[in-house]
């Protein structure tokens, strides 16, 4: 469901900074359906990748073979990302808060973490520079607190200061695709609000999954369940071994 909904967000020809797992599935699903000219860029340096198998990591050799370009990571970050060439970046995280801030660093205090998470990787700079950011995450109250323990990747409000004061080139997170609902950023406040409900899910169930009083759009979208074709591609072609689904 999440991969299918995220895939529909991608526009043909768009330059997409791809992470591993669901974002990779979503991008390759979009490429197989409505966006054959999507340009996939991985932070490892593969540009225009056409992986013959489901890549297990962003450095998988299948991303290199047959790609349009392989460049250094200095080029990826300086020329492609900071250079403003990336249309969409995908992010996920252990915690996502009301303002779209993402934490992939620590649960608990930084100096004495309860759980040490992997850290930023390229996420901090993707959140700053990609023209827009899509977040994919399962909905539950641990993952969606009112405030993250640590802001790894900036959303729309940082310790009270709005994004527009912080001179970030990209628009930041515009949409959060979850297994139950779609949240979107309110253009005024920068707050994540409920914008769409998956089939069979209630507003109360979504509210129970987030740690702040969730504002609800007056007219809610109803993202369609994955079509037979989407399911077939995901299950039989893109992830036949069920690594991510």
């Amino acid at each position: 469901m999440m991969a299918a909904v995220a895939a529909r967000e991608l526009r043909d020809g768009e330059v997409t900074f791809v992470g591993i797992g669901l974002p990779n599935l979503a991008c390759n699903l979009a490429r197989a359906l409505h966006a054959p000219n999507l340009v996939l860029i991985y932070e490892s340096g593969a540009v225009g990748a056409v992986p013959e198998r489901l890549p297990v990591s962003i450095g998988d050799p299948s991303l290199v073979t047959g790609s349009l370009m392989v460049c250094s990571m200095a080029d990826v970050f300086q020329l492609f990302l900071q250079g403003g060439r990336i249309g969409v970046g995908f992010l996920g995280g252990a915690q996502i808060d009301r303002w779209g801030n993402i934490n992939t660093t620590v649960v608990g205090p930084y100096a004495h973490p309860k759980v040490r998470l992997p850290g930023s990787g390229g996420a901090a700079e993707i959140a700053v520079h990609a023209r827009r950011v899509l977040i994919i995450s399962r909905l539950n109250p641990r993952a969606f607190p009112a405030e993250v323990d640590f802001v790894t990747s900036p959303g729309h409000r940082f310790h009270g200061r709005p994004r527009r004061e912080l001179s970030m080139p990209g628009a930041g997170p515009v949409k959060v695709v979850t297994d139950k609902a779609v949240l979107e950023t309110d253009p005024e406040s920068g707050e994540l609000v409920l914008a769409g409900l998956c089939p069979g899910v209630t507003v109360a169930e979504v509210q129970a999954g987030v740690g702040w009083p969730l504002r609800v759009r007056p007219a809610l979208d109803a993202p369609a369940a994955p079509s037979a074709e989407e399911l077939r591609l995901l299950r039989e072609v893109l992830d036949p071994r069920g690594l991510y689904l």
Partner: protein
Amino acid sequence: MDSKVVSMKEAIAAHVRDGDTVVIEGFTHLICFAAGHEIIRQRRRDLTLARLTPDLVFDQMIGAGCARKLVFSWAGNPGAGSLHAFRRAVESGALEIEEYSHFGMVARLAAGAARLPFGVLRNYMGSDLPAANPRIRTVACPYTGETLATVPALEPDVTIVHAQRADRQGNTQVWGLMGVQKEAAFASKRVVVVVEELVDEAVIRADPNRTLIPGLVVDAVVVEPWGCHPSYAQGHYDRDNDFYVDWEAISKDPGKLQGYLDEFVYGCADRAAYLARMPGLQDRLRARERTCAGVNYGF
């Protein structure tokens, strides 16, 4: 000129010293596990390990007690889980960390390679990273006045780079993902290149645009086929994704981790012995043929 070719044992003995800042680079691709294992076998201590993605190689070195500090930007086992030796060491306070994002680490090595004291990047606004790491600072643009982030140059004592091929002088060619190998090599005081294949200088000279690292920055060349396993070398062998999955259970249990080190590191005199313990490995992972055409360098 004299050849720089030595054994892995000799290269590590000569170039990696207790207390050094050691970089073993390679983004997923060309991570030199053979060098990491030899450092463990030679029982180096108090190392500052630096890499964008510590990966299994640094988790093993941390688990073996080689490291005092880790400098990094993403510490996980992609698609498979965590680096549990790293997590235990951090959560217990036994391992000091210095943390950036990928772009920050790239900028640090690029600055080191260019012998500039700092790198400039448009980043870290709206993030808690600068609060967690006071070495992330800012500078004002002398033209526009705007504030930009800075990171300090990273100049490792020694960098170990794996590559598909080099000549005896260390002129090194790489294809597939290049990561920050070039920047790390130029930034470093000493450089060890480990290759799948030692080739004649004429092979290098036939395609000079393919050269990533020139011999003049290289101190030692080690010939170690399959030296990246479980990482990979494009055109030689695939990544051993099964082992990356297995590492989750091994690294989670300190006893199992010790057992792994005993069997596959301390229990192996060298890379050949390591490979001999895994019959069938090479058949399972050997790369298929997908050779590109050459280009004309004539004039």
